[in-house]
């Protein structure tokens, strides 16, 4: 399973490095979202700075949808599912591999977004350990749910609209917990973020486990 996961993740990341869709499109998209939040909330830093954790995570959530869609788009357009199924790979391995590749890309994106939040909203990045821990745990949860629903949607004609509808409500606890953890870290009280990190960890573990079990049947259907 892990061998297959590494194989799939390596393949996805290699394709990403070649095509640079993440770098050239998803990154700028996330930046545009940050700028639009700034415009929507006005130039007042006293408004923007306290909201920066939430805005950061909303931007991450929206980017995850694009990242997951891209992750399934690279499976050669219409033969996507057939190719993966014919490959003889362990479905759980495919799930972990694809989710893993999404995690890596999102973590890179989050680093850039964190800098963006600091520069644009004047958020003071403190409590680095909590910030990073939140990103890692939260991203695992997001990537797991995204990859799971991504395979449901990937074979369907209505995938572009179905994926966000399925994905966003389910990951609402991630948005909540990650935002609160970041709030505590940015407010200089990272010690109080522990409980929120627990929520993120539980979420990630539950959905990674669900994915390992449910990905196979979902890949077969369609």
């Amino acid at each position, binding site marked *: 399973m892990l061998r297959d996961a590494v194989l799939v993740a390596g393949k996805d990341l290699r394709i990403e490095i070649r095509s640079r869709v993440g770098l050239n499109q998803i990154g700028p998209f996330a930046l545009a979202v940050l700028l639009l939040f700034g415009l929507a909330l006005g130039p007042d830093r006293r408004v923007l700075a306290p909201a920066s954790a939430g805005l950061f995570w909303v931007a991450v959530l929206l980017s995850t949808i694009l990242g997951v869609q891209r992750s399934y788009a690279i499976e050669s357009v219409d033969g996507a599912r057939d190719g993966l199924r014919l490959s003889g790979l362990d479905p759980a391995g495919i799930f972990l591999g694809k989710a893993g590749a999404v995690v890596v890309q999102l973590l890179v994106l989050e680093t850039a977004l964190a800098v963006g939040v600091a520069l644009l909203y004047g958020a003071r990045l403190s409590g680095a350990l909590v910030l990073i821990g939140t990103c890692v745990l939260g991203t695992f949860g997001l990537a797991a*749910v995204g990859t*799971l*629903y991504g395979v*449901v949607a990937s074979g*369907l004609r*209505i995938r572009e609209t*179905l994926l966000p*509808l*399925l994905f*966003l*409500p*389910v990951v*609402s*606890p991630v948005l*909540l*917990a990650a935002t*609160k953890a970041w709030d505590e870290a940015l407010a200089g009280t990272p010690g109080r973020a522990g*409980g929120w990190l627990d*929520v993120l960890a*539980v*979420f990630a573990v*539950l*959905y990674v486990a*669900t994915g390992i079990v*449910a990905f196979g*049947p*979902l890949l077969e*259907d*369609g």
Partner: protein
Amino acid sequence: MRASTRTVPSERVAVALRVLGVASLVGVVATVWLGLFVTPPDEFMGNLVRLLYVHPPMAWVAFLAYGVASLASLLYLWPRTRSERFDRLAGASGEVGVVFTGLTLVSGSIWGRPTWGVWWVWDPLLTTTALLFVLYLGYLALRRVPGEFHVRARRSAIGALIAFIDVPIVYLSVEWWRSLHQAPTVLNPTTHKTYVHGSMAWTLLLGFVSFTLVYTWLVAHRYRLAELQDAQDTEGLEIALAERRAEAVGR
């Protein structure tokens, strides 16, 4: 395996369903009559207390419906209990659950406006309910995706369980999120205990019972509708198969 879709519900089921329908209708009418005209206004909330005879039952039925949908999905996924009936039950209960969730939100909001002065507060229960509403709207959208029966059924069942796992996490994190902020000092209906006494308590109890009966009746009818639609699909398949085989002869 598909043959079961053909069974026309027996007379006894039809009669039972009709009795159930009459009972729930009587129950609701009685609840409304007691709620609006018999019970006295509350000393703190005045007439607004009358909304509380319908709002908590709505929420209870919504959660019951999701519980039933999740259980049915689980039973469908479990190989030994796999049956088309559980898929239909999950779908029926999920849809009725969404209707009741919508009503929970609307009735809560209508109660909140004069009580709190706003249509919406970020109360943990209210927020969780709203998230559940969109979560299960997604489930219904997933169910509507066409496909071969067992493919669609399995996909939907997995979708229902993904949503179900989420419910406690959503509830706990929202609860915790709210408790960290100091809630606005409003009259909180869950801590305000004096409103349930005498005829009011009976009315509320009757509300719970009769709306649960309404739920059962609706699910039964939604289930029968799904059964008929599936039977139609099966018949369509048989015709399609005959047509497909006829292609070979036309040449």
